[in-house]
């Protein structure tokens, strides 16, 4: 036994800190872009015209039916270089997480919207509202309520899944843990350290979602 684990952690503290920030950043980007894109994909899939909705159905099928890890590799080594001329772990990471998250969010939203009684839409339409107004003022506000818990679960998964980005050298938590482990040929210290940090992040997320739920419930 050479170096004291405490000393190793102390040495790596700045990297773990920036890694944490990157993990948070990737997760937030995935949540924000994934939610926006997910809503669009959801509406796309719900279009009445089968030809128009087909691309959105394919999108969801692909991103939910293939491993996120494979998607990350495809995007990092294929898509991003094809568009930007070179690969970039941060861009690839954000793109991959957002695209993947969007597919799951789209399904969560669709289930939420479809769980709202058809009579609500009919009442809105019978008052002269168009489809969009009925969706916006009547269905969505009620659906948001219902999708909050499953959305929270998706967000928590996203935080954990962002660890896969270590494979494309995106400088997030797991990447630095691997670096730490490799430098000192140790396992327990780095992985337990980041496990602890991930736990704090996911618990914080579920706390926030819970609070939001309760706030909306009392309203």
């Amino acid at each position: 036994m050479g170096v004291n684990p405490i000393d190793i952690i102390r040495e790596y503290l700045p990297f773990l800190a920036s890694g944490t920030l990157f993990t948070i950043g990737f997760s937030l980007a995935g949540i924000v872009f994934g939610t926006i894109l997910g809503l669009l994909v959801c509406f796309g899939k719900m279009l009445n015209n089968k030809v128009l909705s087909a691309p959105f159905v394919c999108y969801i099928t692909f991103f939910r039916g293939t491993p996120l890890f494979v998607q990350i590799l495809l995007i990092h080594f294929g898509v991003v270089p094809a568009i930007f001329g070179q690969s970039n772990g941060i861009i690839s990471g954000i793109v991959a997480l957002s695209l993947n998250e969007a597919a799951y969010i789209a399904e969560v939203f669709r289930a939420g919207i479809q769980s709202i009684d058809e009579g609500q839409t009919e009442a809105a339409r019978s008052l002269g509202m168009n489809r969009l107004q009925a969706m916006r003022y009547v269905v969505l506000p009620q659906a948001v309520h219902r999708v909050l818990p499953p959305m929270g679960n998706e967000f928590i998964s996203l935080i954990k899944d962002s660890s896969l980005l270590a494979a494309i050298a995106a400088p997030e938590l797991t990447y630095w843990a691997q670096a730490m482990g490799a430098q000192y040929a140790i396992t327990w210290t780095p992985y337990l350290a980041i496990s602890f940090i991930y736990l704090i992040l996911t618990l914080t997320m579920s706390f926030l979602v819970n609070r939001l739920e309760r706030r909306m419930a009392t309203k």
Partner: protein
Amino acid sequence: MMIKVENLKKSFGENEVLKKINLEVEKQEVVVVIGPSGSGKSTLLRCINLLETITSGHVFIEGTDIADKTANINKIRQDVGMVFQQFNLFPHMTVLDNIMLAPTKVKKVPKEQAKAKAMELLGKVGLAEKADAYPDSLSGGQKQRIAIARALAMEPKMMLFDEPTSALDPEMVGEVLDVMKQLAKDGMTMVVVTHEMGFAREVGDRVIFMDGGYIVEENEPNQLFAHPNEERTKAFLSKVL
């Protein structure tokens, strides 16, 4: 002519639910539709404001054919209020917001004006004190009266009622019927699907008996109830009267 239904047919897949309906409703007329379950009463009502697509035939609202793809259905629906058996109030909004939503968002009525109108309507249905309540806290009868007020807020020229009292406890039926009677007195054009024969007799100008997707018989209420011509009408009336 407020409503004119011409050779209306409606099928769900293979199942032809409305077989060839012809119907005219005059301004200020109250038409009551009766008939056994599954006879197509709701479907007829829903075709009149295009909540169901029309398989063939025509429905004219004040002369405009709503089966025509170019008809502005959102505009036409503003003139055709609808009240549902299940109320369908918006549970995430207060009573006041339920009533104000469509006028402010669809007709762009200023908030203050919409609110004044909503309060007036709430007074009319006897629920002014419930303005800030949420639908979940109301009884069925109160919900349905709010639903009527909500429809009236758009100042429709005619109202469709699909069994407005069928989901209510018996002691609440009266309060809803009273509101509807007042509405009829005020000259509203109404088509009412109901099992309340007393209501049909009292305020109906005409009663329509439907069975199996057809209008079997129609007549002035007392005439139809006392002297039905068709066997099917007789059989139905003997069960409900």
